[in-house]
């Protein structure tokens, strides 16, 4: 593989693709949303169980998609577990900026943690939507919208 491709498909991404965390369903759950990328066919369902005071107690996802979308879903669920809904939404905003290459030096970089592994993806514009799909679904679930699409 070329160096540039290894930049995109980092070991951590490959590893999450192969062994996604929190993979499965939560029934019953307090929040559920479908994430769909109609152009690629990436298709996931996201389940949340939240406490009354807005803490994500448990989160799972299921579905099918490319390595980028699957690893991103897996790492999103890892991050979200135990966070408040506000924290999760705020991280979604930050992650969007990161994958679009719009994050400025010092702008919340430290809070991203492992998610920084997606920093190089802005160089692959066709793949940015694969990385953000899980976060679209998270926002949809929190806002009680049933479906999130990368095309709206």
């Amino acid at each position, binding site marked *: 593989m070329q160096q540039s491709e290894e930049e995109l498909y980092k070991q951590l991404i490959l590893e999450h693709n192969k062994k996604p965390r929190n993979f499965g369903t939560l029934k019953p759950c307090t929040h559920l949303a479908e994430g769909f990328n109609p152009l690629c066919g990436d298709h996931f369902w996201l389940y949340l169980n939240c406490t009354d005071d807005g803490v994500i107690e448990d989160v799972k996802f299921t579905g099918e998609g490319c*390595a980028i979308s699957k690893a991103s879903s897996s790492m999103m669920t890892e991050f979200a577990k135990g966070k408040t809904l506000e924290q999760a939404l705020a991280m979604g905003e930050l992650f969007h900026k990161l994958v679009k290459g719009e994050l400025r030096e010092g702008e919340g970089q430290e809070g991203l943690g492992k998610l920084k592994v997606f920093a190089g993806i802005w160089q692959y514009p*066709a793949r940015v939507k694969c990385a953000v799909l899980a976060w679209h679904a998270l926002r949809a679930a929190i806002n009680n919208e049933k479906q999130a699409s990368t095309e709206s």
Partner: protein
Amino acid sequence: MQNIKLIREDFPALSRNINGKPLIYFDNAATTLKPKSVVAAMDDYYLNGAANIHRGVHRLSIEATDKYENVRKICQKFINARSEQEIIFTSGTTLGLNSLALSLAVQKLSHGDEVIVSAMEHHANIVPWQLLRERKGIVLKVLPMNDKGELETQHLEALISPRTKVLSCVMTSNSLGTINPVKHITAVAHAHGLEVIIDAAQAVAHGSIDVQDIDCDYLVFSGHKVYGPTGVGVIYGKEEKLKALPPALGGGDMIFSVTWEKTIFADGPVRFEAGTPPIAEVIGLGAALEYFMALGSENVERYESTLLKRAQAAVKRIGGLRIIGEAKEKVGILSFVIDGVHPHDIGTLLDGAGIAVRTGHHCTQPVMAFFGIPATTRASFSFYNTPEEVDFFVEKLTEIQKFFST
């Protein structure tokens, strides 16, 4: 094939480097690259005239009209129509199929009438009929296929009822590569009085088309899939059919006279060409078809078939690879999936090696659903591709499979 090196020089895009590697263009089923002569013909029109057609007495308009009308003759030759009066210019296969659906709906489809399409249609030959199902209450029936991606034509007869009026079928599948026996299908449909439409979008670039031999009533194709420009396509219709068919669109150029009380339509194909047509694109299409016919469709067919066989034999050695579409009769289209590797990851990694392929559902979601997969990777070959490119592609694919399996 003649000298590939010389042929490749006609396509400047082929000398580009992508990600530091020479471009290998295997996305020909999405659209083909354009030879210089096509662009030159369009440039000539735009730079030396650019007049509108059919409506001026001045020299530039007459020249443009001659060039435009001459392409009807080229198209006639290309698909062996009886007369150039059977050639209608449109924007592409999609508008062609939509306008035929609308015209036939007016002419002969009532609530409860049936239209048959095949299980391997492109969305362009599904959605227009579904719109008629919503608006007019027609019934859409589907001719099934087997798991090799071949139509089960033995079931066609049983599918036809007294309410069946139209059969619209793809000649060559864009996602599977299957060449359908459209001559046989047409004969069966005609025996029951059906109107037959053939979607030849994918077929035109891979071999010869003879509408008299097929005997279909209508046939549609796009210019950009046969080395021509985007924005132009052709509807072929038997002359006697076109005479009776109401136009789907109205406007300038397609009329004989207009008063507030009544419009009398023009005769011939212009009746279906409302408004200023894509003149430059039609001229470009003419140049593309002349280029293609000079190569010889049999030569193209034979050469692309050797590339396909070489690729098919080699990819079978890749672990977990499954070819989608293993029909006996195929054009140079290789669709496949690899266990544990999503097509989009394959597409991105191949792009890194300079190789352009298509990944996704190829606008044939029912085909993907039939095979139980969300998407495939598709490599589609042209006469300007080489065996060395095929070998390099297989080598890269092998690396990608290993990359994801370790």
